[in-house]
């Protein structure tokens, strides 16, 4: 199947210019990715990758990137963190429609990861909810990619956790 996802990286202070990084990615066989270099100090790889599974697609892309551009540090894998308009766009409904759906099912709709001046969700639980509770047809490849993107982003953040805190929190929050 074909999987669509984006890897966003921050570049170390001493990095070769963007054109050089693009050439290296081309050499490494990343021509199934669109490379964005519009932000100084950043690089984004928007893949449409053929693979057996989303995990294989994303892991192989991460592996190639790590070797081709070692000066890049992963910030996030998308699609994962989303606002309601992002979800609406991904499943092809209006934002108002999405908002109404959330408000009328307050009890079961997945809780936002953060609510403030903006509200953010992990995409996967929202897609799952739409599929199971609201009878939406969700592309299997999108569902799969959203799941693995969430897993990677969580795993990446988790490396910052202090072990002692982790143990206590597990007991307190479980």
């Amino acid at each position: 199947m074909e999987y669509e996802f984006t890897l966003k990286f921050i570049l170390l202070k001493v990095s070769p210019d963007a054109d050089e990084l693009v050439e290296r990615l081309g050499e490494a066989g990343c021509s199934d990715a669109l490379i964005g270099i519009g932000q100084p100090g950043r690089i984004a790889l928007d893949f449409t990758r053929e693979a057996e599974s989303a995990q294989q697609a994303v892991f192989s892309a991460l592996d190639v990137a790590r070797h081709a551009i070692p000066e890049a540090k992963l910030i996030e894998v998308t699609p994962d963190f989303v606002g309601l308009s992002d979800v609406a766009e991904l499943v092809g409904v209006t934002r108002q429609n999405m908002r109404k759906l959330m408000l009328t099912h307050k009890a079961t709709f997945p809780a936002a990861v953060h609510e403030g001046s903006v509200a953010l969700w992990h995409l996967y639980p929202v897609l799952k909810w739409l599929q199971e509770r609201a009878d939406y047809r969700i592309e299997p490849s999108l569902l799969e990619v959203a799941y693995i993107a969430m897993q990677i982003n969580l795993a990446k953040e988790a490396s910052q956790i202090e072990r002692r805190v982790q143990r206590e929190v597990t007991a307190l929050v479980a």
Partner: protein
Amino acid sequence: MARTRHPKKEVEEAIQHAEANGWRIQIGGSHAWGKMYCPYNDAECRCGEFCITSIWSTPKNPGNHARQLRRVVDNCTTRKRAAEAAKSEPEPESE
């Protein structure tokens, strides 16, 4: 316009779509065929990384590459906002 055409028909068409929307094309590179630059350079833009997008000489899948390039052009927030504004204006009289 006098620029080299991209060897892949679908990609060339996507580049022309970008040009029609004001994107500037710069040719150069080896694995890269060139780059396209977003015409809007304003603080409100949140497209970020893809305001400059690299175009491959021999993309793994030319159809996908072309589709992705088009998506970058069509998703530009400044362009979308301009289109929305135009839509809410009264329709101009057509002949």
